[in-house]
């Protein structure tokens, strides 16, 4: 074999090694012709499906805050993560955020949430609360898609061409919120053609630009229901265990504050059963949503200091307002007590909501609520 032939062989091998995987990924997908409304209905129903796999999330927002003040918000919107998921249903799943230096595992089992953090050698066990700041399980495509599509109207939905995601044929769906108060420009998602399981979700803010502010994509998927043993943590007896009542300040506010928020704020109706949400008000539908959380003075003080460190904060003394990506934040101490409001709505909507919540809040017996 001559020199030229030898180099040709090497070149051919190199090209084949690169091209074969790319070619498999680029195989065309035939669209099923399903309507947007039907696909959305299947997506909303998909959280009952059992599956396991890996998810890559990428937040593309420059977040001017640090620390754990907003729970997982800063990490989800500003960083990338790799998640291992075992999903038996909306109340039975395990989501591990894996890092080269360790991992953080969150297990939801009925009414209990267990969180394990390797680097701290610590596990915390708390009752599950519907009122809490976003965490890793909330950005798993099936959970995020359901949150964003809930309340969507047919006129806001349209179909996108099908694509191949995690090796599966996936049907595309677009949601463009009609509400002018929303800071979410659009949501694109792709769901498994066969089962309706969302495999990729892209959230875009209202600003012009082609990059999503948040992408969450399943990179590998096994559509068989994992056994119950996979959605539990088999923890060593050598780890520290702490038991608490709340996972974060939002849940703490719900547990202790004797307030009932009004049924409407900034023209957005209160969402969900008031019995579930207690002192915290959740308003809006789909991606146009805000929450109003009463805060104790000590928590508000820490949050205020955090917000004031951000260069872009607007501070009137009684109110601190900040926006990053599609998220607006307002800490309001203008009356009795403190409220933090945050949501994917315009800053003006948040100010109006703060006024409405203060005007409409009722004092209730926290035990008899």
């Amino acid at each position, binding site marked *: 074999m001559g020199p030229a032939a030898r180099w040709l062989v090497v070149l051919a091998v190199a090209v084949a090694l690169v091209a074969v995987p790319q070619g498999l990924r680029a195989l065309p997908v035939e669209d099923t012709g399903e309507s947007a409304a039907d696909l959305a209905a299947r997506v909303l129903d998909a959280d009952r499906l059992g599956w396991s796999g890996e998810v890559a999330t990428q937040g593309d927002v420059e977040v001017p805050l640090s620390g754990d003040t907003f729970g997982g918000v800063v990490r989800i919107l500003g960083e990338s993560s790799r998640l291992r998921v075992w999903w038996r249903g909306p109340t039975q799943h395990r989501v591990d955020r894996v890092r080269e*230096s*360790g991992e953080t595992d969150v297990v939801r089992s009925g009414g209990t949430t267990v969180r394990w953090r390797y680097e701290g*050698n610590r596990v915390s066990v708390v009752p599950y609360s519907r009122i809490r700041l976003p965490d890793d399980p909330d950005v798993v495509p099936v959970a995020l898609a359901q949150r964003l599509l809930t309340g969507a109207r047919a006129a806001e939905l349209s179909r996108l061409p099908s694509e191949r995601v995690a090796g599966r044929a996936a049907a595309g769906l677009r949601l463009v919120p009609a509400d002018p108060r929303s800071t979410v420009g659009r949501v694109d998602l792709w769901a498994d053609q066969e089962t309706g399981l969302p495999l990729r979700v892209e959230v875009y803010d209202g600003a012009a630009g082609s990059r999503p502010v948040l992408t969450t994509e399943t990179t590998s998927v096994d559509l068989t229901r994992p056994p119950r043993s996979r959605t539990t943590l*088999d923890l060593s007896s050598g780890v520290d265990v702490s038991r608490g009542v709340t996972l974060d300040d939002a849940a703490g506010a719900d547990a202790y504050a004797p307030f009932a928020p009004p049924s409407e704020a900034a023209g957005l109706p209160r969402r969900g059963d008031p019995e579930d949400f207690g002192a915290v008000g959740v308003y809006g539908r789909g991606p146009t949503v805000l929450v109003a959380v009463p805060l104790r003075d000590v928590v508000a003080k820490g949050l205020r200091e955090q917000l004031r460190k951000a260069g872009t904060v607007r501070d009137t003394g009684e109110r601190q307002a900040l926006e990053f990506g599609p998220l607006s934040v307002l800490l309001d101490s203008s009356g009795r007590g403190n409220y933090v409001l945050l949501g994917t709505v315009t800053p003006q909507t948040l100010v109006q909501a703060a006024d409405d919540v203060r005007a409409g809040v009722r004092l209730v017996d926290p035990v008899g609520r």
Partner: protein
Amino acid sequence: MIRVELVKLMTRPRTWITILALNALPTLVAVLLAVTDLGPRPGTGPPFLSAVLTDGTLFPLAALGIVLPLFLPVAVAVVGGDAIAGEVQSDTLRYLLVRPVSRLRLLVAKLVSVVVFVVLAVLAVAVVAYVEGRLLLGDAPATGVVSVSGSTLTQAEMTQRTGLAFVYVVLAMLGVAAIALFFSTLTDSAVGAALGTIGVLVASTVLLGLDAADAIKPYLMTRHWLAFVDLFRDPIRWGDVVDGVLTQLGYLVVFAGAAWANFATKDVNR
């Protein structure tokens, strides 16, 4: 031919000095941890380093995490870069080639020699780190070693997974060895071949941090190097480990092939 190369490897002082130097940084880290009792903040630092203060038996894995991103590949680049170019520099390649041995067999012998060096280096780092961990850092908890996912690993599981981790680290260096060997056939300068290899490593590391390079990241040589941590999760996360091995085999096939393509008819002037 392989035996000759292995004898040459073992009798060279440079081999042992390099291995000694590889152990310097983990030793310094162990001493600093023991003196200050300060581990890295959660989520930062090399893998397992946050756990060694409570369980010193994990220090061999932490030491591998310390040397793997830079020091070990640099050592492999130096040894691999010297394989052919070093013979040219010392005017011995002509004498090697007049022996009744094909150039392909010589290349294979050189590659095997580099891989044996990697095995020796990894074993030395592990053994030294184990001794340091037992002497300077925390005792293993009586309840057993805690996996990254919080479960208990039995001694048998720990031994098995540690063995797999060492095999993985050796395999992770295959690509570096092949690239260094290829550069070594291109130039008459061993230093030049080593620097070229290090340049490829640096480029790979830089591209890994670049969003615009997302499409090529799965093919980058350094992409899966630290995936040996996944062997200590429960259940084991095989995806990146398998991808890492396949990536290294790909680099091995292409660059060892390129070394063969170039060296088979290379003119030897010295």
